[in-house]
């Protein structure tokens, strides 16, 4: 025998050191005796304790201002106060003249952002009212109702405005930076990149009412009306999309024509008020609304899920006490976020977004809410040291009046439950 065949054989042996041991099975004769079996069970008692807490965020701290008018259900209005700092007198020109001269208000332009609306809404009217100064987080719906009754400043049919032709000439583009749509009353609307409507109202001095003592501080309120689906959301201070007011005024120049000046002022405070107000927390689980409510649910992982099963799907089942009243097309999102430690109302929320689950709640619908929580329950089943509790909260808290309430563990027939699909531990070791 020469060395060549030996080397060849050795190479062959080395080269063949790869495994392919898996093949489609012909069961049951040529498959292992164990079965991968799936069990589907509703664990009615896995949610062991739950609590609802309110006051996490006030309406004035929300990322939006909910405005709606659904007769018999909800009447929500945005109110905001704009910064003044427009001095009634300015230094005379030319310098170094130190005497002052009064400014002459020419007009003002109010701008606000409609960040949410229903495109199916017909004859959507947005109405602006003048409100008394002094708005703050304690301002109630009842306190501003009189002003909303007799102090209308302007109104615009947004549906009609959006139906008007786009103005695309170069002069318009230079002034406005983009195409605009306008009506005969001078209202202007621009559509932002994210479909936000930027609405402009042009006020004369009667509408704007510059009060020298207040240095131009003003407050306005916004209502909506529509044939259907009268509900919008306005941008707020917290979302950096607050309303602004640009004053146009002049003051004299001794040696020249009057000086034309503009001063744009942003909102210093905004909120929304609504009626009927959110009822106080009761024995049910409240989520959302303004002030924002959250519910803490504590979970007891059964031994079977820790030792003998692998969870493949877990669904939280929540039964609403009733439908959330509001505009038919409106919705909001609630999320379940695990807590790092169970400290009741002040439980810190986890930042592991992979364990969050979300569900969109449609108004005026009382369907059972199901939230997929598979990853979270799987993680808890593997970690005996984890805090097995989660908080239900609304995303963009305090941006809407809508609050949903679910039955709690105190209502046994409708208590929260977990629908869990799991794979039983495989019977290894037996043929």
């Amino acid at each position, binding site marked *: 025998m020469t060395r060549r065949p030996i080397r060849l054989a050795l190479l062959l042996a080395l080269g063949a050191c790869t495994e*392919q041991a*898996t093949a489609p099975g012909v069961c049951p004769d040529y498959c292992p005796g164990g079965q991968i079996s799936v069990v589907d069970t509703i664990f009615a008692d896995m949610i062991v304790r739950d609590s609802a807490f309110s006051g996490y965020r006030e309406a004035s701290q929300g990322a939006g201002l909910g405005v709606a008018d659904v007769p018999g259900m909800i009447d929500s209005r945005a109110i905001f106060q704009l910064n003044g700092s427009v001095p009634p007198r300015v230094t005379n020109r030319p310098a170094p003249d130190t005497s002052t001269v009064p400014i002459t208000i020419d007009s003002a332009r109010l701008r606000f952002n409609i960040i949410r609306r229903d495109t199916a809404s017909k004859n959507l009217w947005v109405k602006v009212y003048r409100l008394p100064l002094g708005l703050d987080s304690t301002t109630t719906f009842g306190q501003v109702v009189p002003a909303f009754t007799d102090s209308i400043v302007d109104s615009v049919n947004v549906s009609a405005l959006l139906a008007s032709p786009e103005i695309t000439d170069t002069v318009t583009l230079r002034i406005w930076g983009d195409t605009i749509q306008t009506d005969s009353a001078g209202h202007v609307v621009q559509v932002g990149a994210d479909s936000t409507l930027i609405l402009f109202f042009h006020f004369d001095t009667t509408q704007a009412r510059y009060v020298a003592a207040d240095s131009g501080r003003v407050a306005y309120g916004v209502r909506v009306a529509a044939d259907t689906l009268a509900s919008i959301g306005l941008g707020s201070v917290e979302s950096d999309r607050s309303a602004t007011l640009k004053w146009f005024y002049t003051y004299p120049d001794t040696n020249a024509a009057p000086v034309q000046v503009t001063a744009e002022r942003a909102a210093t405070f905004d909120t929304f008020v609504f009626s009927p107000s959110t009822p106080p927390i009761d024995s049910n689980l409240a989520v959302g609304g303004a002030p924002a409510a959250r519910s803490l649910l504590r979970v007891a992982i059964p031994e079977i899920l820790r030792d003998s099963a692998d969870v493949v*799907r877990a669904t939280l089942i929540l039964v609403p006490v009733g439908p959330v009243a509001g505009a038919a097309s409106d919705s909001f999102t609630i999320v379940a976020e695990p807590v790092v430690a169970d400290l009741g109302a002040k439980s810190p929320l986890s930042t592991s977004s992979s364990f969050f689950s979300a569900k969109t709640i449609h108004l005026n619908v009382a369907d059972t809410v199901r939230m997929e929580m598979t990853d979270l329950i799987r993680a808890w089943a593997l970690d005996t040291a984890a805090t097995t509790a989660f908080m239900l909260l609304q995303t963009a808290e305090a941006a809407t009046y809508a609050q949903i309430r679910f039955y709690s563990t105190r209502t046994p027939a409708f208590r929260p439950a977990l629908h869990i699909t799991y794979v039983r531990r495989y019977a290894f070791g037996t043929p």
Partner: protein
Amino acid sequence: MTRASLVLLTAFGALALAAPTSVRAQDSQFGIRGLGTPGRGESVRARATGGAFAPFDPYSPLLDASIADVRRVTASVTGGTSWRTVDFGTQSNSLRGARFPAFLIAGPISPRLVISGGFSTYLDRSFGVTTRDTIDVRGNPEPVTDEVTSDGAVTDLRIALAARVHKNLALGFALHGLTGSTQVTAIRRFDDSTTYRTSNARDEVAYHGLGGSASALFDLNADLRVAAWARSDTHLRADIRGRTVADDDLPFSFGGGVRWRPGTEAAFAAAVAWRSWAGAGLNAHDTFNWSLGTELGSLVSPLRLGVRGGQLAFGPGPKAPTEFGISAGLGKQFSGGRGRLDFGLERLERKGGSGVTERVWTFLLGLTVRP
């Protein structure tokens, strides 16, 4: 203690530590539904002769008395690579695997007494099975793919003593420790992976058992040698994390063989073996196996041929699956007889219930060293 004895003891220690995780034999689909696929306990030399020379080959861990004539410390290792085709009616699958089914070291500890140790595959438990199904979950049909795999083996750790008690008679005894483990997984994947997570169960199954064997070699004359052996194994206990999940009876086995060496360059052998596997749980059958083989040419570079047949220990149905194989091989001594390389090629065909046929090509490589 002689240097050779020291080498032997050291080698035994190393083997005891290393063996259980490294040894596996050729597997088979027929063993999936049973305890596994029994190993052969044959060196490449014996395997190339269809197993007929195994009772007379000191480097085949079958018959303990055969080591009685080992006069120098010798180590032997067997490796093999298999290509398998499994036909289930119209469905055919190709599989492959590389194995090291046997290692043996032996040497004299006194002029009459020889000790041997090593490991070989007792039961191979390496397989993987995938199945497709549609199950009903939450009232909806959900297509799933299941994959169950097992990777490992039960190893036969053997310590044997043999002595030539008479010029015509050698006796041998051995203790067998059965040990080993398998890494097992069971995975269920849902086609709708967005809604359903993959279930992945993993574990390690540890196996334990004991056995004992005795054997004898008797020379009827200068050319004719007969062999007989018997072995009894107790139970095979399967533990998962310290908890016993199965305890199966292991077989009593016995067999014999005859070798005729009419000249210096020709030898013929035949062997039979019977094993009472039927008590080893579901789908188990008693087996009878036979083999015929020859070794032709000089001891320096012999040519080997063999044929074998018999039954497999596990398989569905009331009848044991059958096996038939032919084999051939070559040997080559080097370094003045201090080393030897053996090559073998085996073709097996197994037939069992449900019309399943398994065809296997196995390439074998063995190395024997006398330091």
